[in-house]
């Protein structure tokens, strides 16, 4: 290894240790902020990665897609804002890797007005180019329509009635792929990647009323809510946060951004746990100290 690199690592570790010491010594929040920055930036600089255990919920989603016959019609949703791209975009990318590898026909849509269609367009076109897929034949981006409950319900009767044109304004009747897809009955599986409560509607409207299996990928903060649906069999697989995305990347054989982000997340989680323990240790010491001593 390059000796300068070793020196850089030693300096970075020393800087991290110093920041931690100062943060706990002074309880100044700026040192805590600096320490968090350090633990986010450090793993990115040294590209440190750790193996990820695959959770049963992630494997369930992967297996469900694997079990689909080749050339199945699959709906992939981009129901997330740009704020959660770090967690959700790797899920969409991994899903597209698996779907395009299986030659599935991919229909994409979004219920997010701000940037949802742009994200879907950018990610899908990039992955489609890698697999030599053609727009209108192998994948179609429906884009955004207002009032998602009506959109989800209406697509059960006719997708064309809700989306007369795709995201670029091309009539659906002119896209060869849409000759095979009229409503939910022509779709074999739905993967809803989301950072909000829209997944509830995919379950209550589409899964419950039309019987189409739904798998989901959600942010870590909302993942606990969906365990109830996985347990009840109403969700076929669940990707929870960046960890879920990293697991899915590992399963599809394309470790990428989520896998890289895992080390930073690991270090920050460990730092927060250490902070909580240290904060409680200080609290207990202060509590046991006699009041007179504390006042002196």
């Amino acid at each position, binding site marked *: 290894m390059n000796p300068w690199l070793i020196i850089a690592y030693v300096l970075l570790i020393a800087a991290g240790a110093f920041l931690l010491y100062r943060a706990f010594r002074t309880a100044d929040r700026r040192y805590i902020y600096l320490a968090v920055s350090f633990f986010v930036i450090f793993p990115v600089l040294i590209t440190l990665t750790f193996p990820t255990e695959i959770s049963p919920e992630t494997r369930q989603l992967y297996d469900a897609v694997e079990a689909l016959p080749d050339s199945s019609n699959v709906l992939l949703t981009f129901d997330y804002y740009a704020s959660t791209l770090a967690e959700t975009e790797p899920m969409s990318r991994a899903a597209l890797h698996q779907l395009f590898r299986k030659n599935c026909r991919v229909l994409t849509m979004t219920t997010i007005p701000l940037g949802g269609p742009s994200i879907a367009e950018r990610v899908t076109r990039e992955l489609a180019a890698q697999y030599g897929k053609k727009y209108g034949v192998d994948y179609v981006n429906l884009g955004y329509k207002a*009032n998602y409950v009506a959109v989800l319900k209406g697509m059960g009767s006719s997708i064309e009635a809700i989306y007369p044109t795709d995201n670029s304004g091309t009539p659906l009747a002119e896209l060869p792929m849409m000759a095979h897809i009229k409503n939910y009955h022509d779709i074999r599986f739905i993967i809803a990647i989301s950072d909000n409560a829209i997944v509830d509607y995919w379950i209550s409207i589409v899964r419950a009323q039309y019987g189409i299996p739904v798998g989901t990928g959600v942010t870590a903060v909302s993942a606990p809510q969906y365990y109830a649906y996985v347990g009840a069999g109403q969700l076929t697989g669940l990707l929870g946060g960046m960890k879920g995305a990293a697991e899915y990347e590992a399963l599809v054989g394309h470790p990428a951004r989520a896998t890289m982000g895992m080390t930073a997340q690991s270090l920050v989680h460990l730092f927060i746990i250490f902070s909580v323990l240290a904060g409680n240790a200080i609290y207990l010491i202060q509590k046991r100290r006699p009041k007179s001593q504390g006042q002196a």
Partner: protein
Amino acid sequence: MRTTVPIIIAFLSGLVMVLAFFFNPEKSTIGRFEPEVLSWVTIVGGFTLLLGVVSIVRVNYGAVQRRSPNWGYKLATVISVFVMALPAMLPTRWSPLFGTGPGSIYDWLFNYVDAPMMSTMFAMLAFYIASAAFRAFRARNAEATLLLVTATLVMLWRVPMGEALLQNIHHDLPGLINTYIMGGANMAVQRGIIIGAALGAAAMSLRIMLGIERTYMGH
């Protein structure tokens, strides 16, 4: 009149959607009527977006004219609305820079201005959580201690380094956390919340349909 008409519209719209659920959409009149109602809802939804834009421009432009506190930020909001919206609304046949497709002004502004700003705002949460965890997350009583221990275990379980650490303590500890905390206690509580919220939503829908709940009319 201003109260009765909206109540009748709300009652009929709700009734159609409830009844349509029980009828075959291809073989019954009410079933065939459902997609029509849904198309109306989508169109009305489009107009509500327009209403939102008009409202944000009116409120912020008024504040700029009055030179109210922080009017500079409000001016930035108004300018941003038009800079994002206008090129997106212009027809693409005039220029490939218009519309919302790849390479358009809207797409560029979204990918290189809006997305980084939104991601930055969201990422700042990590700093606040770390600071708050150190300063406020205390084992003051039995409930807080239980929460603290559970949170620590779940945080360790959700990252590979923590997972490896837990496996060193007991090889099946990550699996036990998934089974008993996430798939056990968490799932039971979430089910209670979901069922409670669904019953609340059903009761609220009924109140709106029957005209008991009128807050949506500004009453």
